[in-house]
């Protein structure tokens, strides 16, 4: 390296959710700083929940994200139900899992084919990619639509569903209403398996990291709406002890808080973590799809997250079909409950990883304190670490190429910066 000082500035990183910037400083050929800077303004959701009735928490927090509102609905319900000691009847738990399947399908497919795949196929965006890969994009849109169909039916509408409440739903679908979803979901399941074939042939960077994976784990099912908090290094805790394990810290360069373990460790949430910690809980076709894609039971190459998402889409479609076939409407759309004072904890698996909610509620059922930790926020530190490790061997590359690899590495996570805000401007400073 003959040059000692270089400055690169990227004003906007496309195809992530939200607004942010990446700052790299290179001093004498050594990478000294890799900071993912989130500069979306704070959104004050935790503050505006204070003084609201705890029954409002799901609908308020669902507005945090237009891509994964179901995750917010589910985590806030789980927390309030935990607080009230409310046991949700099994048919309603199944129906919530069906709703969550819908969200996983639409969110994962959007991320995989519209945001991330153009990186691997060398297109600036999905529209350019669609001109030459029309069949693949058409199939993706149809799979996504099948997921939207679930959310629209169970949630009342496709974006920001309105039919979920503490204890269950406002209105239950009939078997006759669910039945028409079935053919399209069956088509989408076959199409999702097919769509994984071209993904297996992609040229992934030879890059692996020894992540500490954290995800939920449940006795019998691949985790979505419930489970214990487990990690690849042996942590196994009830969700109520989340705060003992991960704590949030302000960092100067970002409006998104960073999460660390007590000894300063960085954890990795999301599809790679879920898959690694729950490979034995995959559905049969999802396991077969993973094997066909050449995925080992633990994937440490973050670039291959696009394939793991694809495996989870197969799983979600398979689960959705099972749940629809087994659906028998219960007597009541929601378990009755009375608010009580206390603290409730809830965590579910948003498409991008564990989404944790904690609420303190007073005797009148009003929220006195709320804590919401979006998975993207937790992943900030792991993204920065990926960038450091990935950029370092690539410092000889020209700025444009460096920028492209950084953007791709960030899109491995599809940071929903809006949720954590708490998009991407890249500055590279070479001294």
């Amino acid at each position: 390296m003959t040059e000692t000082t270089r400055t690169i500035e990227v004003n906007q990183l496309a195809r992530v959710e939200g607004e942010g910037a990446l700052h790299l400083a290179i001093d004498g050929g050594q990478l000294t700083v890799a900071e993912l800077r989130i500069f979306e303004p704070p959104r004050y959701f935790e503050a505006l929940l204070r003084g609201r009735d705890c029954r409002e928490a799901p609908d308020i927090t669902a507005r945090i994200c237009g891509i994964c509102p179901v995750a917010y609905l589910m985590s806030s319900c789980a927390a309030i139900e935990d607080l009230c000691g409310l046991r949700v009847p099994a048919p309603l738990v199944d129906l919530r899992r069906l709703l969550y399947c819908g969200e996983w399908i639409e969110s994962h497919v959007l991320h995989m084919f519209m945001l991330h795949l153009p990186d691997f196929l060398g297109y600036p965006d999905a529209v350019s990619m669609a001109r030459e890969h029309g069949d693949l994009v058409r199939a993706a849109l149809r799979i996504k639509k099948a997921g939207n169909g679930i959310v629209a039916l169970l949630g009342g509408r496709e974006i920001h569903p309105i039919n979920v409440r503490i204890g269950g739903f406002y209105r239950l679908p009939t078997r006759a209403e669910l039945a028409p979803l079935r053919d399209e979901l069956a088509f989408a399941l076959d199409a999702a398996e097919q769509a994984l074939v071209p993904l297996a042939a992609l040229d992934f960077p030879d890059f692996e990291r020894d992540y500490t994976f954290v995800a939920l784990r449940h006795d019998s099912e691949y985790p979505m709406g419930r489970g214990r908090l487990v990690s690849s290094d042996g942590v196994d805790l009830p969700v109520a002890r989340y705060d003992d394990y991960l704590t949030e810290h302000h960092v100067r360069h970002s409006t998104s808080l960073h999460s660390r373990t007590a000894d300063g460790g960085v954890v990795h949430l999301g599809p790679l973590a879920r898959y690694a910690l729950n490979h034995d809980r995959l559905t049969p076709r999802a396991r077969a799809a993973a094997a066909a894609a050449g995925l080992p039971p633990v994937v440490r190459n973050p670039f291959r997250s696009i394939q793991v998402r694809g495996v989870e889409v197969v799983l979600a479609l398979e689960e959705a079909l099972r749940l629809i076939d087994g659906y028998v409407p219960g007597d009541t759309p929601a378990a009755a409950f009375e608010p009580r004072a206390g603290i409730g904890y809830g965590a579910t698996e948003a498409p991008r990883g564990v989404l944790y909610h904690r609420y303190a509620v007073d005797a009148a059922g009003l929220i006195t304190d709320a804590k919401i930790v979006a998975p993207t926020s937790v992943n900030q530190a792991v993204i920065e670490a990926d960038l450091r490790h990935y950029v370092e061997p690539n410092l000889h590359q020209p700025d444009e190429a460096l920028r492209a690899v950084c953007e791709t590495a960030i899109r491995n996570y599809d940071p929903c910066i809006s949720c954590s805000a708490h998009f991407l401007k890249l500055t590279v400073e070479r001294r």
Partner: protein
Amino acid sequence: MRLRVLGIGNGARRDDGVGVWVAQALAARLGDSLDVRVLGDDGFQLVDALGGIDAALLIDAVQSGAAPGTVHRFDAARQPLPPALLRCSTHALGVAEALELARALGQLPARVAVYGIEGADFGLGAGLSAPVAAAAAGLVEELAANLTDRPCTNTP
């Protein structure tokens, strides 16, 4: 000819709902035989709604700096919409992007008339501002006459 009227917007954000208002007014005027769809800001729904038809009539609110109530007309089958008029959203596929995705996928109808009505008030609440309401009523008259005389004469 299979024509579909697409009203885009959010009726809870004042003038942003003008596309929906025009579409619904056309439906009320011309009856159930008219294929009308009201869409929000999820562009993927728009890509889907453009499939399987011969002509689309799309109405949306725009914000270009022109006088409120100004009606902009575009032939989107011939060329992309002017980027300056279009909002860029990182979260959702916008109207222009949805039209381009449909074009890339070969499912853009042969005729796509886009009407953009310049809004004034995009704040919270229902109802259109006066200049936008007047422009919308005028556009409904014009479109209703065209649609009953001949199907979709908006594009050459």
